[in-house]
């Protein structure tokens, strides 16, 4: 079953007089429970595509279906609600709130949910998430008191707190050393295999992409090739 489907996605930026077409008609699908790597050199349109996938941006034309919702025409507020409900973000630079405990960092997205969650329940759910990522004993630490790997795990816990359909990880290991990177990537694989979470890993590194079951390679605003890394040929 398709979780997301892209049909002829185009994105054009207007830079003064000049129009810059970054995406030139991307068509792709990702099924539920997949672990996909989105690869490409810088300037290939990879980040733009990721922004559209994350509902942060709208395509200039084309259709984007996510979990049965058509996103390309959604308003700013509608997209915000969709992001809150359907998508978890993990960033290269963690983006944790400084001088805020891990617990509060993780529970933060619940504040913006459509239904009001009671303070105690927020704490409970955040604590459960932190235990799941192996930080049960660091709940009240501030980001500055945590290592890079631990910070990224807090970020992962935060991305999972709203039980998203899609986890978008933008260079999640870019700021980590190789051993920690391995741990984080293993965590993504576990989440994918054990909970059937759909994950898109945006990366430029082949070692990272190797952890994925499939990789989508971008080149000059188009999908260059879709190579099945593991499993059967498409």
């Amino acid at each position, binding site marked *: 079953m398709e979780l997301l489907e892209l049909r002829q996605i185009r994105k054009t930026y207007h830079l003064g007089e000049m129009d810059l077409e970054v995406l030139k008609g991307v068509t792709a699908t990702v099924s539920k429970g997949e672990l996909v790597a989105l690869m490409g050199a810088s300037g290939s349109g990879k980040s733009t595509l990721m*922004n559209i996938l*994350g509902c*942060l*941006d709208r395509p200039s034309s084309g259709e984007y279906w996510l979990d049965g919702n058509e996103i390309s025409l959604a308003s*700013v*507020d509608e997209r*915000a*609600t969709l*992001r*809150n*409900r359907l998508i978890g*973000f993990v*960033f290269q630079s963690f*983006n944790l*709130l*400084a*001088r*805020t405990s891990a617990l*509060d960092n993780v529970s*933060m*997205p619940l*504040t*913006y*949910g459509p239904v*009001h969650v009671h*303070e105690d329940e927020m704490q409970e759910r955040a604590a459960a998430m932190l235990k799941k990522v192996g930080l049960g004993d660091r709940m009240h630490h501030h980001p500055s008191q945590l290592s890079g790997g631990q910070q990224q795990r807090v970020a992962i816990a*935060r991305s999972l707190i*709203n039980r998203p359909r899609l986890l978008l990880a933008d260079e999640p290991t870019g700021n980590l050393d190789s051993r920690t990177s391995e741990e984080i990537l293993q965590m993504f694989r576990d989440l994918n295999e054990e909970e059937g979470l759909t994950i898109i890993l945006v990366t430029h590194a082949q070692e990272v992409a190797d952890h994925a079951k499939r990789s989508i390679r971008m080149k000059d605003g188009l999908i260059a090739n879709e190579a099945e890394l593991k499993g059967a040929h498409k």
Partner: protein
Amino acid sequence: MRALRIFKIALRALRRNVMRAMLTTLGIVIGVAAVIAMMEIGHGSTLAIQHTIATMGAYNLMIFPGNAMLAGISTGTGGSMRLSPGDADAILLDCPSVTAAAPVVWARAQAVYNNLNWQPGSLIGTTPSYLDVRDWGQMAEGNPFTERDVRNTSKVCVIGKTIEKMLFQDESPVGKEIRLMNVNFKVVGVLKAKGANMMGSDQDDIIIAPWTTIKYRVSGAYSSSTGVTTTTTTTILPSQVYPAAQAPLYPAASASQQADTPQPVRFANVNEIVVSARSGPEVKQAIDEITALLRERHHVHPNMPEDFTVRDMTEMVRTMSSTTELMTTLLLIVAAISLVVGGVGIMNIMLVSVTERTREIGLRMAVGAHGKDILRQFLTEAVVLCMLGGILGIGLGRATSWLVRTIKHWPTATSIGAIVAAFAVSATVGIIFGFYPAWKASRLDPIDALRYE
């Protein structure tokens, strides 16, 4: 509940940088403190000024008897004899806006002490309440005469500073006797100096005695000569020159005797009643109350004009209210300026804060915050900051006014209104000056915000 959470988030955000929050809100703290201190000190001064003006008689009302017609000839104000000391008592009793009332009898006489003599500027007969009406409570020396003296027609008086200087020079007048119309008055007290009144006449050139004494021992003939019932005699009787030597006070005269030898009748009318209203705004009300009461007491027909007139110190009252107004306006201007300066400080720091926290805003938007959530968050932060500043400022302002009161002994008055207003205004300043930065934050694009370095 949601509001509570937003408030908590705002507090948490402010706690992340306590020092800066403190410095940011300092503008508001100082502004509000200045307002509160100025208000309390200014309010105190205003009250003091009002009190001073009140001492000058701004709240005083004067009631004069009205016009009387004698065979087609109008006597003008003061001609009728229908104002009585009983009216003064009734006014004090029945008019809630009145704090003191005293009947006044005028007289004119030469004051003599030993070899010195002097014509006092005013010689009046009244009750001790007169001193309350005129705010003349404190004596330079001795004591005022009493109600008992009024009842007993005692020959006592209090004198003003000018009289003391002119008749007694270096002596202490208390206990000495002065002569007025050949009646000996014992001086029981000396009034404090009051200086000239607004018209320039010397208010200390005065002798005050019980109205009964003045009326029946000094000015009996004088007062009744304008009366309606006595027929004037062409011969000057010794009794008119020396009223104290008058034979029986209540002559048992037959009708024919009365027609043959007319005797002055003891009238209990007074020339004036002075009244003091409770406060400036109550002067008008006091006039209404007195008018209604006296109309009833004098049985004035509803369709007829009053047989008395009530006068107030309109000009003085106006002066007073303009003084108060000036003071308040001045304070408001100072308050507005300081709060605007404080508000600009808040806006400045909130803009810095928004820029500094661009990534946080981007992140919050990425996880689903709407623009209005961000707007609300930053607005709440600004308002909380301002209100904390307001609370600190109120405390600081009150402390300042307390210091001024205890060290400099200036009068201050607590102004609840100012405290409430300062709090409300600081919250408003937070909303006004916090809105632009918050709006700017809410309009950020999450993609750019997340990438912001």
